[in-house]
């Protein structure tokens, strides 16, 4: 097991290294580093001072080294607009985004899996067909448009839920979270559901396909032949088999959810990293873009690593094969 983990961790480090190279060279060669890292509206003196401070007059490999060292220290440049370290700004907003993303994932799991399994067990019932039709809609509807419709219907027309912003927050282990307050939950519901819709549809389709395939297998028939109750057959025998592909896909999609939060945050004016990114793109606040990129790379690599480890825990065939190697 530890052989497996060590190997995956090493692979992840390689990926992070490669990505840092890409980001660095993307900034310095594709874009103009002076525009990217120094505010072009500063006066000439400041620009030259900054060039020297950032080492932009040095040879490129030294610059890269400088960049790497700074990154490890936590310095990824200063925002033009806010005049604060970019990293700090992003980290401040991260809890809001993560809260949104995790709530959406939880919705995808706890709504998507039961609905999908049901549709897989009784593929011809009216309820199943409705579920599948709904999943096609959820899959096809662009997230931002659904968000707009949610606001139209639930906030403007019906007035049940607030239309924008994040609710009251409380502190949990030093991080600001909003799901512990009632107001916070009211504000969280629509954006999370909006973000989750695509994933819920995905999970429903996966769970249904998996259930249909597994339900036909001999070992399910054998389980019934042993006289097991149908709830045990479904909850233990079928579920454990479909969990593997579902978890894999969900885990890989977590990164996608965090990225796609950009859209939901824009529609609902949710104060997360994504909104910061969009604003920064509009305002050409490039250090934030660079910092966002690096943070995101790190996050995705970690997520992929965790998913791989989880996968090996769930599927004994994978885990035990590695022990021999």
């Amino acid at each position, binding site marked *: 097991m530890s052989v497996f983990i060590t190997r995956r961790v090493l692979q992840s480090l390689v990926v992070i290294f490669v990505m840092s190279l890409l980001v660095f060279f993307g900034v310095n060669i594709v874009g103009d580093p002076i525009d990217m890292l120094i505010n072009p509206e500063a006066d000439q003196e400041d620009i030259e001072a900054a060039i020297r401070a950032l080492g932009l007059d040095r040879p490129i490999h030294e610059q890269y080294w400088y960049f790497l060292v700074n990154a490890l220290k936590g310095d990824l440049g200063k925002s033009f607009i806010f005049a604060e370290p970019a990293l700090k700004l992003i980290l401040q907003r991260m809890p809001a985004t993560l809260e949104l993303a995790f709530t959406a994932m939880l919705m995808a799991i706890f709504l998507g899996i039961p609905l999908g399994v049901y549709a897989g067990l009784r593929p011809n019932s009216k309820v199943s067909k409705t579920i599948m039709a709904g999943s096609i809609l959820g899959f096809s509807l662009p997230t931002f448009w659904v968000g707009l419709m949610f606001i139209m219907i639930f906030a403007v027309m019906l007035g049940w839920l607030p239309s924008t912003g994040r609710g009251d927050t409380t502190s949990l282990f030093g991080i600001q979270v909003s799901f512990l307050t009632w107001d916070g939950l009211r504000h969280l519901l629509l954006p999370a559901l909006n973000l989750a819709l695509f994933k819920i549809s995905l999970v429903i389709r996966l769970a249904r396909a998996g259930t249909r395939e597994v339900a036909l*297998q*001999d*070992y399910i*028939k*054998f*389980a*019934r*032949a*042993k*006289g*097991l*109750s149908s709830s*045990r057959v479904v909850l*233990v*025998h079928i579920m*454990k*088999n479909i969990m*593997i592909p579902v978890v894999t896909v969900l885990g890989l999609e977590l990164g996608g959810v965090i990225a796609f939060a950009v859209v939901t945050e824009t529609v609902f004016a949710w104060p997360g990293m994504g909104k910061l990114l969009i604003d920064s793109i509009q305002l050409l606040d490039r250090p934030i873009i660079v910092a966002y990129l690096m943070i995101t790379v790190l996050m995705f690599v970690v997520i992929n690593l965790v998913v791989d480890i989880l996968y090996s825990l*769930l*599927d*004994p*065939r994978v885990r*035990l094969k590695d022990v021999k190697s």
Partner: protein
Amino acid sequence: MSSESQGPIPQAAESSSASVAPAAQQAGNTLAIDDLQTHFFTKAGVVKAVNGVSFSVSKGEVLGLVGESGSGKSVTGFSILGLVDPPGEVVGGSIRFQGRELVGLDETAMREIRGSRIAMIFQDPMMTLNPVLRIDTQMIEAIQAHSRVSRAAALARSREVLLKVGIASPDERLKSYPHQFSGGMRQRVAIAIALLNEPDLIIADEPTTALDVTIQAQILYEAQKLCRETGTALIWITHDLTVVAGLADRICVMYAGRDVEQGEVDDVLDHPLHPYTYGLIGSVPSRNRRGQPLHQIPGMTPSLLNLPPGCAFRNRCPRAAQECLREPPVVEYGENRRARCFHPYPRDSL
């Protein structure tokens, strides 16, 4: 229906296909199937997988249910336990288990019987055990589904049964996953699971077909031994006559969804009555002479979707005649010896 039999047939008792066995015999039967019909309602039409099967198994007896692929033998096995998946369903006939009618029994009662009074062993050991669950989980759940015992007690029982089927070091095996075993070992585990709750009847659906010949022989021997010891009735479904010859007490031959001949094993194999049985025995390689072309039954099994009227074997039968267009009668020759034919081979014995 009158039978136009050729040659002297002592003690020929004729009856229609829905035969009623003598009451005394029925009382001793663990299982008595009478004119079972299981049909599959597909988009292409109705597939009559089982189209009138009758046989019985008594306590401690081994019955070999023999037939080629598509003869309906597996579906018969599933029908007994109510495991026929849609679009199939049991549409007629009766299955009496220890006097109790199983056809139409509600699901809860059926579930009580499955795995505890009647157990089943499937053909492909690789797909029978759930690959993501441990062996002990899969065995303990089979016990706990039928009786309230502690996990420790269930584990102890599992260990005991694994030893009985010839698996050394059961503790290690219990903690393992199915893919860590060989095919023969997996099938032994499946047999062990069948034995856990001491059933009165075990239905084994071609359990050794997917295994090596050497393992096959071992498992056959052990299955026979276990049944003798515990008095469990066994229905061994197979297409291989040689397997049946060494193992079974009685044999029932199936063709195109019907039982065409049954009786004591030695009697049927030495003196087959039905032309199909005759052809089947004749085509076993060891029965043929070296250097001569292998005997085959000409033609192919009819499609179960469009069964020809009358005798389904008609088109391939060397003894077929005009009357075979009608439903052939069941000809009885004393206790438990019958054939479904207009022109069975003469019964020479006695």
